[in-house]
């Protein structure tokens, strides 16, 4: 018994000093980063981490911040809000991080915002798009390098009304993102006095990946436009099966989640998008920063960036620029700097409003065309630029 207790005590003794040890005077500037590297969203998280790494590389190549090199402390949020919160705590309390790029998902953000506020560490999310987050107490500590769902939904609602569609179907991810865009779209339609009906809504589980009957139901309800809200990996499956089920004769509306050449690596998915998607949305900047980012990313990691790689890249850059602007590695100063920050990121011009949301409202409407010069044979092109006030 005593032996056993000693064993246990030894185990504890091994772990606790590590927990409690305080690092010496920092030689680098730490930027925390929370991405979901395991669990349901692990594929996205893995790519977004590449975006963050690219940003850090560039920052350091440009001389770092405050004369020091930047160190990225990446943590795995496990696609579990509780784990995400734990990683925030770890970054703040153990690593002494003063600014965090993340969390990735809205759930983790919801848990993390109050903590960030109390501990005066700003969070810059790259992909938590739920508009409800702006209503939380402490949202002034929460900045978004991504645009919110409702803006996007309204842009799409305008497209529907412009084109005069009257029978809308939707197939959206069953999470805050998918349902958020769908809800905003319907609100936008109602506010715009749209005369039509939503014929069928499907909230799909991204793990199921067998959507034939769901798509068949959409087909059978005879809509004239279908809204899809997906990320890249599950979008590919939906598009592929939609093509197989013969839904390419209906007009589809896409969103930022299915923008990018990543969706073209599955030829069926590319073919479907080219045939069916009449318009998709995404945020844009004025210059060529996105194309430069894509080029660098592709060169570095051998594949094209997908959704939120650019915003992750921008979030890390925003953190670095804010530290530089603050002149001191301190959460409060960084937050103040962030509120005044303005720069041209990969995903467009970045500045934050008083709630910490991205102020820019520049969207482009895109579609997919064939382009034999690209590796996949397809590319996205802009149809129109939309600016929300």
């Amino acid at each position, binding site marked *: 018994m005593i032996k056993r207790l000693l064993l246990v005590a030894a185990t504890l003794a091994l772990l606790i000093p590590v927990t409690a040890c305080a690092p010496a005077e920092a030689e680098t500037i730490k930027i925390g980063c929370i991405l979901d590297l395991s669990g349901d969203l692990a594929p996205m*998280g893995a790519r977004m981490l590449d975006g963050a790494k690219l940003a850090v590389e560039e920052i350091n190549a440009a001389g770092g911040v405050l004369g020091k090199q930047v160190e990225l402390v990446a943590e795995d949020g496990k696609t579990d809000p509780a784990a995400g919160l734990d990683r925030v705590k770890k970054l703040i309390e153990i690593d002494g991080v003063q600014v965090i790029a993340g969390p990735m998902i809205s759930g983790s953000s919801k848990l993390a915002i109050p903590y960030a506020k109390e501990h005066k560490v700003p969070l810059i999310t790259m992909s938590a798009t739920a508009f409800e987050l702006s209503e939380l107490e402490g949202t002034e500590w929460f900045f978004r390098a991504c645009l919110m769902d409702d803006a996007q939904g309204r842009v799409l609602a305008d497209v529907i009304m412009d084109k005069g569609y009257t029978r809308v179907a939707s197939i959206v991810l069953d999470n805050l993102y998918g349902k958020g865009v769908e809800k905003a779209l319907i609100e936008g339609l109602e506010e715009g006095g749209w005369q039509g009906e939503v014929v069928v809504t499907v909230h*799909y*589980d991204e793990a199921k990946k067998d959507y034939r*009957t*769901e798509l068949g139901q959409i087909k059978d309800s005879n809509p004239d436009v279908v809204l899809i809200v997906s990320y890249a990996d599950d979008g590919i499956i939906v598009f592929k099966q939609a093509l197989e089920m013969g839904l390419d004769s209906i007009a589809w509306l896409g969103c930022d989640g299915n923008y990018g050449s990543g969706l073209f*690596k599955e030829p069926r998915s590319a073919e479907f998008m080219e045939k069916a998607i009449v318009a998709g949305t995404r945020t844009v900047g004025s210059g060529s920063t996105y194309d430069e980012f894509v080029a660098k990313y592709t060169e570095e990691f051998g594949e094209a960036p997908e959704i939120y790689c650019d915003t992750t890249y921008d979030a890390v850059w925003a953190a670095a620029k804010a530290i530089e602007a603050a002149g001191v590695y301190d959460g409060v100063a960084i937050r103040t700097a962030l509120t005044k920050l303005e720069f041209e990121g990969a995903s467009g011009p970045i500045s934050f409003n008083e709630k910490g949301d991205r102020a820019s409202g520049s969207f482009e409407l895109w579609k997919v065309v064939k382009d034999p010069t690209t590796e996949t044979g397809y590319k996205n092109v802009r149809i129109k630029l939309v600016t929300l006030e």
Partner: protein
Amino acid sequence: MVNWAQVIFNSGVTGSLYLIGAVGLTLTYGLSKFPNFAHAEFMTLGAYIGYFVAEQLGLGLPLALLVAFLIAGLVGVLCYRGIFQPLAKRGASIIHLMVASIALGFILRHSIGAAWTWKPLYFTATWSAFDAGPLRITGLWLWLIFAALVLSLAMHFLLMNTKIGKAIRASSSNPELALASGINVDRVIWITWFIGAGLAAVAGIFRGADTQIWPMTGWDIILPIFAVAILGGIGNFYGAIAAAFIIGLAENIGVVGLIALGLSTTYRTGIAFLILIITLIVRPQGLAMLFRRA
């Protein structure tokens, strides 16, 4: 108007995949007497090996199926001999074996994640869709149904007409008498694990070709597959065939019902779980009594 013919055809596709996945599970469950949750990871592993052979080495899908079958089978046997057999010999309870299989699942899943990253991979082979009457069909779906059919016939032949197949059935129903008949029951169990894990790999490749491959490929469908194995009666291959199509039908008709009722289609995942729970409560032996021979 609901295109019922399509719904039923879709059920066949869903059911075929579940069947291929469930056969190995039900056989090993029947013989080793514990539910192997790492079966999910055998599927995932198979899918990755298949991808490696078909896409990275460019040797085509048929060879990929074969190689994945063999390698995953081998991994299955090694896992059984390295973990489950020693545990069983030490008198581990069914719960311990089950937890061990979950732990093995962690190891395999994250080893795969470390080896191939968590980014999904896609088979490039494509099959075009065509209309056949009211149906939309693609070549892959036909292949999947065909594979399930061939598998059923092959397993039927194996279990009914070969020595080892009969020995599998014999050992599953009465291990002591099997020993007394001179059957090396340990070897029969290894062979069953080989076949079971190999078939899991085949299911993984089909799932991968139909959708995508990532480290959770197997875990995504393991609970419906458990539902099939249990509804069919543990260890009962013929029950599993019926159960796979019952669950396929229930899921796809369920989607139609859910949409008609205005409920979230996410519940589709829950339909198989619900059948699972009801089977266990009402009729834990599953459909086994209908198919006594297996």
